[in-house]
């Protein structure tokens, strides 16, 4: 149909191809312009103006006030700074943990052993069960058990280790070794979050596993013939070949962590709970810029070391 039309206009083959290509992509172009770009601009507009709700709380009007909202959120809002820092710190702590854990597990699952299919099926279960609805239901129950009636925030999982005494023992053990406090804190954080890390790394394991499978066996053969130990083989063959996927996985992990972060929850509650559109927009924008900054910075740092085989 398209080609017929184009022929009548007398276009060359290249032009016809480009028209067809644009037609193929057109749904996305429309969607991007109408929903994404417009929404982004509108978010910025909300952020730099004061929103007055109409009496029916459906209509609203905006008037430009410059950066006043940003000033308010950063200097006067009771929770914002704290929640933002918490969210970003959580992200910075979790992302490397999840990446290393999933790479490690992918390497283990890539080996040949009996019951591998079962193990894989179990390890991918979290992808399926990582449902905010389930977390919310469980959190609600927990809150109900404790006696509160307010439902806990959606999509938040708290994985606090239950056995305090054993933990204290290990803390002293580590402290006796003379390790710096920050490292101890990180290790303890990692141990207490193991549940969270495991549930969050389903997709990353799949992606790393796919990358591992695509490494040609001849490379390992060469490494073996040249007398490389398995440690050397990992750093000289496996890791460089997987490294491009490191960025993909990092982006995925950061975003996954972002969409469940307390800062977005705060923005959501500011919008629906308090009907304060401007503040909510400021929060969304600020956190978005922070996350994009982190992503850009880390991919820039990492991409220098990434090895592209092709």
């Amino acid at each position, binding site marked *: 149909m398209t080609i017929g039309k184009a022929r009548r206009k007398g276009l060359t083959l290249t032009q016809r191809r480009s028209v067809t290509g644009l037609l*193929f992509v057109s*749904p996305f172009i429309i969607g991007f312009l109408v929903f994404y770009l417009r929404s982004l601009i509108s978010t910025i507009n909300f952020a730099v103006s004061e929103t007055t709700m109409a009496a029916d709380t459906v209509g609203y009007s905006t008037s430009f006030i410059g950066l006043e909202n940003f000033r308010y959120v950063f200097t006067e809002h009771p929770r914002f700074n704290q929640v933002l820092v918490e969210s970003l710190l959580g992200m910075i702590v979790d992302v490397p943990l999840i990446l290393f854990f999933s790479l490690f597990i992918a390497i283990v699952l890539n080996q040949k052993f009996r019951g591998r299919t079962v193990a894989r099926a179990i390890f991918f279960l979290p992808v399926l069960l990582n449902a905010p609805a*389930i977390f919310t239901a469980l959190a609600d129950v927990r809150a109900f058990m404790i006696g509160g009636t307010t439902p806990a925030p959606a999509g938040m999982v708290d994985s606090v280790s239950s056995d305090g005494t054993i933990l204290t023992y290990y803390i002293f053990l580590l402290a006796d070794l003379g390790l710096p406090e920050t490292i101890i804190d990180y290790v303890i954080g990692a141990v207490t979050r193991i549940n969270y890390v495991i549930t969050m790394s389903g997709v990353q394991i799949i992606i790393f596993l796919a990358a591992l499978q695509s490494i040609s066996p001849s490379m390992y053969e060469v490494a073996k013939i040249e007398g490389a130990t398995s440690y050397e083989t990992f750093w000289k063959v496996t890791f460089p070949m997987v490294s491009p996927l490191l960025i993909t996985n990092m982006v995925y992990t950061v975003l996954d962590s972002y969409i469940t972060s307390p800062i977005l929850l705060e923005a*959501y509650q500011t919008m629906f709970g308090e009907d304060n559109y401007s503040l909510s927009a400021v929060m969304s924008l600020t956190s978005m810029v922070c996350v994009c900054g982190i992503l850009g910075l880390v991919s820039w740092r990492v991409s220098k070391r990434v090895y592209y085989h092709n």
Partner: protein
Amino acid sequence: MQKLKNKINAMKTDKHLDNEKRRLIRSSLSFLMSIFRFGLIVGISYVILGPILGIVINSFFSDADQYNPVVLLIPQQPTLEKYKLAMTILNYWSVMRNTLIYVISLSLIQIGVCSMVGYGFARFQFPFKKILFACVIIIIIIPAHSIMLPLFTTFRGFGLLKTITPMYIMTMFGVGLRSGLYIYIFNQFFRGLPKEIEEAAFVDGANTMYTYMRVMIPNAMPAIITVTIFSLVWQYNDLFYGNIFQIPNDWSIARKLNTLLGTLGPIYRVTDPSLAQLYVYAGIVLMILPMIIIYIFLQRRFIEGVERSGIVG
């Protein structure tokens, strides 16, 4: 004892036994490795399965079992009454039917639209292609969560809130739930396919649409399976878009599940939190059941699909 020592000494000096020694070391190392691997896998499986098993088992507890401190894992009087009530409250069969219709139709649209767009980006040259592909990256990187406010006001302006239409509109225009990722996957996959197939189809007189439908799509099965599973699961579990667009509870089992606890007390007179918990557990099991069934059937093909699909690029 002396014999053994002699043997060891002999082994130390005898050059001919070098190979044997090495083999011994290697086999014992691999044995240790397999024990370590086994422990690791069992441990992590426990972390993953533990809570699920707890939920499943507890959902079969009767009231007496729940109050009996001796009963821990195996219920003494297993009952299905929790499921019966949970099913009534969730209005299970009809909500589940609606949810599956909703989720499956959205996934089909996702596959259709995202594969088309991905194919467009992979095989055609057109002006602003680089900028447009950057837009795909943008919608991956900026989640809809950042722009929820305008999305909400836009669809409220259309008067489409509290219906399922907004999600269909968003998906149809390639900006649905994680559409950017699916476009990216399809793009990578199509780029990896040899150009010769299309050239052959073109020489044989097939037009572009025919080539796409009859040649490219059947070849893209791994990517399609990957996207199908991701899209089914994420759409099924989605709560965010459901909350933003206030999708009716009857169309989303995930949203319905969150009303379960609220209805238990006032309507069904289950006021004891430790009993209410069991009903919620039953509800959770009911919710994840269809996904588990789908997963069991598609699991093997899914992992193969991911391995062959374009994620790896």
